Each structure stands twice: as C-alpha cells, then as structure tokens.
C-alpha cells in the first residue's frame, strides 16, 4: 500500500489547517487596525505582515515601537518571540530535510505555529508517508492560514476607523494572546516558565528601554529548562 495521491494529501492538509482561519482572521484584522492607529502607512503594514509574517512578534514590535523603545530592544524582543521557530525548523528538518533546497526555502517562509503543529502531528501518526506526500500535506495545511493572514491585515487597515470605541478593541490583543498561550501550559515546566515570565516582567516593568521583558524571558526560559530536567529526574526510568 503506497501513499494516497498527492492531491488528496494536499487537501487533507488543507482541511486540517482550515479551523485555524478562525484565529488567523481576527488576529490579522487586529494587526491592521492597531498598526494603522499607531500611524503606520498601509504599505508599511502590508509589508510588515508579509515580510515578517509572524503575528505575535509583529504585535510585540508594534507595542515597543509605540512606546519609543530603542531599535535594538524592539528587534531583540520580537526575534525572541520567534525563537521557538528554530525548534519547529529543527523538528521539520527531520521529516523534510531531504527536500530540494528551494522547497525547504519555501517551507521555511511558511513555517508558522499552526502549519508546524498540524504537519508534525500527521508525520508522527503516519511515519510511512513519502517525502512528496509530506510536502503536499504541509503546503495544504498552509494554504488556508498564510495568505489569509496577509489578507486579513489588509481588511483591518480598511475597516480600521469604522470600529466603535465601545468594542474595546484594545483588549482583543491580550485576549488573543491569552487564548494562544493557555494550551501551551502542557507541563509543570511550561507553567513555571510562564509564571516566572509574568512576575519578572511586571516587577521589572520600570527598567529603561523595556529591557525588563527581555530579562524576564531569558530567565523564564532557563527556569523552564531546569524544571524539565528536575521533573525528568524524579520520574523513575
């Protein structure tokens, strides 16, 4: 028994990616709205969403730029938000590392939380999938997510001012973030890391140049890794 035809792999990826549109659309809309309220031009906003192409880091950068944080802090914090993608890249490489360079270069561009999660789940469930099938599935999963992100940003710029103040749109950003963070609380180590991040970010909020968040993140990351090692030791082998 060989793989199902590539076309059906593509569509099965597409179906798995589809529900994420419900998150990507409001998040993208919101970026368009918030960025245009912060004084960015439509061209800059569209470039932001299509060149950087990473929602959480875009909001982080935007927030810090509005607060007049220095360039290096803006870049370091936003890139720190994206560091997790190095992990995605490493785990996708196990499954897609044999693909030609140009395909890997394209896969890297659309290597986002959702496409990564959906694809690696699938690859682990069906280790016998061929390389071509894995690639078809990956691009299927990406199709309802990535173009939609850029489109939603555009719509956000367009509707921007039409959104009334009572809708308290300011708070849609933290709500979206919290909804994304909550399912990440998989283990004790994740919870402790998140707690350290919150406590230190609040305690260090007064530090100049918004360095507090960066320090909080580095310490939280180290603590998370330590807790993981400690919990692994406690479990008998």
């Amino acid at each position, binding site marked *: 028994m060989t793989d199902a035809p590539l076309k059906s792999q593509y569509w099965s990826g597409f179906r798995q990616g589809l529900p994420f549109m419900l998150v990507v659309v409001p998040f993208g809309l919101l970026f368009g709205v918030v960025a245009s309220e912060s004084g960015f031009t439509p061209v800059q906003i569209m470039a932001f969403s299509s060149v950087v192409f990473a929602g959480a880091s875009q909001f982080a950068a935007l927030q810090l730029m509005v607060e007049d944080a220095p360039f290096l802090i803006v*870049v370091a914090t936003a890139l720190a938000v994206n560091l997790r993608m*190095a992990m995605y890249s490493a785990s996708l490489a196990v499954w*897609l590392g044999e693909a030609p360079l140009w395909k890997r270069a394209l896969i890297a561009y659309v290597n986002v939380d959702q496409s990564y999660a959906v694809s690696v789940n699938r690859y682990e469930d069906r280790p016998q999938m061929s390389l071509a099938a894995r690639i078809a599935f990956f691009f299927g999963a990406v199709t309802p997510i990535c173009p939609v992100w850029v489109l939603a940003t555009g719509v956000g710029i367009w509707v921007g001012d039409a959104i009334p103040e009572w809708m308290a749109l300011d*708070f849609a950003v933290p709500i979206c973030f*919290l909804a994304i963070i909550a399912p990440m609380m998989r283990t004790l180590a994740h919870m402790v890391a998140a707690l350290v991040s919150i406590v230190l970010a609040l305690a260090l909020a007064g530090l100049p140049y918004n360095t507090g968040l960066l320090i909080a993140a580095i310490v939280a990351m180290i603590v998370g890794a330590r807790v993981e090692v400690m919990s692994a030791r406690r479990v008998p082998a």
Partner: protein
Amino acid sequence: MSAAYIWTVILVLGVGTYLIRFSFLGLIGGRRLPDWALRHLRYTAVAVLPGLVAPMVLWPAATGGEVDPARLSAALATFGVGILTRNVIASILTGGVVLYGMLALTAGY
C-alpha cells in the same frame, strides 16, 4: 517614528525571522540539535508571551494604566477556558463575552 525607522525594523525583523525559520531546514539531512538547546527553545514562547501580555492585562492603556475589573476578568476567563478546553476559539469567545458583559455592568461607575 520616521518612515526609515519603520522600514528598517520591518526588514531586519523579516530577515531575522526568516533565518530562524530556515535555520535547521537549511542544514541538509536534518542534523539533530543538542538536547540542551532544544530544551531551552521549547520554553521560548511561554517565556516571552506571558510577560508581554501581563502588563497589558493589569495596566491597560485604554484606562490610562488603571486596573480595570472588566478587562481583568475577561483575561482570567479567556485563560481559564483555554487551559480547560485547549480550544482557542472557545477561549477567545468566552473572553469577549465576559469583557462586554463586565463593561456593560460596570458602565455606570
């Protein structure tokens, strides 16, 4: 914020983010990362995002940095439902309902 500044941030972030995404996919054959590195990378998202959100929740700009019961309860509801259901949509909807409900309730004060 000058246009040049905004464009520089976009380009540097774009290139940096792409290099992060390409990093290991770019190395042929999927060489393994050392365990200690993977162990730290696993916690980057939970190390950065909660710290980024916490001040927005506790000291929202919309209320001039004053703690706001409506926003605080919406945040807690979003996070609670997210932990219980692991469902992003359910958790966003709950947050929205609580936010508008509480804003309507506290509107008179």
